């Protein structure tokens, strides 16, 4: 009866809680922080993702608990001298890339 409209795209990116894949483990290899994801089938499908400094910082801040985009933005603002718009952009990019690699799940 009381129909309401939501901006569904907005809802999707800002409200949804996600988690870092619990199977994800960061290992240091000659000074690089990498995540290895063995493929279930062929060995040569093993994927290796390298985390740069800010990606590692986000991982360390957000691993082990559900979080939202705002948590990622806050983590960047706490650590780096950037404005909110930049932090938000970087946080969104990080989430997108982690999702693409199967490292963030809903």
């Amino acid at each position, binding site marked *: 009866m009381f129909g309401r409209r939501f901006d569904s795209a907005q809802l999707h990116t800002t409200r949804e809680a996600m988690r870092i894949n619990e199977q994800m*483990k960061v290992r*240091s*290899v*000659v000074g690089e922080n990498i995540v290895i994801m*063995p493929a279930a089938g062929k060995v040569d499908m093993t994927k*290796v993702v390298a985390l740069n400094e800010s990606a590692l910082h986000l991982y360390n801040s957000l691993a082990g608990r559900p979080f939202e985009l705002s948590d990622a933005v806050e983590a960047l603002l706490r650590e780096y001298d950037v404005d909110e718009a930049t932090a938000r952009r970087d946080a969104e990019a990080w989430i997108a890339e982690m999702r693409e690699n199967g490292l963030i799940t809903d």
Partner: protein
Amino acid sequence: MAEALLNIADLNVRFSGDISLEHALNIPGMRTFLIPDGAPDIEVRLDHPLQAAPFHEVHRFEIADGHSECRVGIDAEGAYIYQFGASSLLRYDERRPGEVCLSTMEQASYLRFALWVAYSLPGLRMGRVPVHSSTVVHDGRAVMCLGESGTGKSTHTRLWLKHIPDCHLLNDDSPIVALRDGVPTAYGSPWSGKTHCYRQEHFPIAALLRLEQRPENRIRRLGTVEAFSALQPSCPPSFAQDEHSLDLLCDFISGIISLTPAYRLGCLPDEGAARLSHHTLFCNP
């Protein structure tokens, strides 16, 4: 009990067993590595009375040309179990790091692979890892060609043997890599695939060369993360299937790639490819 001592990649390996010892020593290449005496670093107990018991499976793959399966897992005590075929077992408990137990194999053809596993499990803890590679030696240094089966590793090393002077093959399938006095080194081994190349020798590694079939010959030096990705798939696949083994393997790979250059070689199966890789590795250090 009948026993024999071998030295493989500077580790003394003692095989013991009443039924299977002779079979083990008759595997082509094995006798090349026999030594008269020494204190064993690794004990391989053949014909051991292992009981079948449930285990948490982490990996499964085909063996014996697809006729059977090997299942890998961890048992109730935390030991690694490899089951070859229906009932042949290998058990490795890291709390006894130098000891591996094998039941009598139901098929003689399983024994060669089972012994490779038996070496590699304690070997990893002792800094020795078999790497799937065709390895050629030139000017006293080893060039390790890596790549999926069928990509042309053996073809490339054969081209070196044909066109580059002062070369010989060290191993065509599974040389063993270790740090020897801090120097990444490739060792010959009793496991060389279909090529009978069994050499009790070792050489410092000139480079890791990951091959891909391409319409033209090009070579590119790899950075750290790419070098890791080049070497890791050539290490025993089971080591990537549980967290602890992967930790150990990453430490090992770190040690090697921090000291050894790695390249990606896209190439044709021709003389130009061998000349390109030789020139890059040996003429432009």
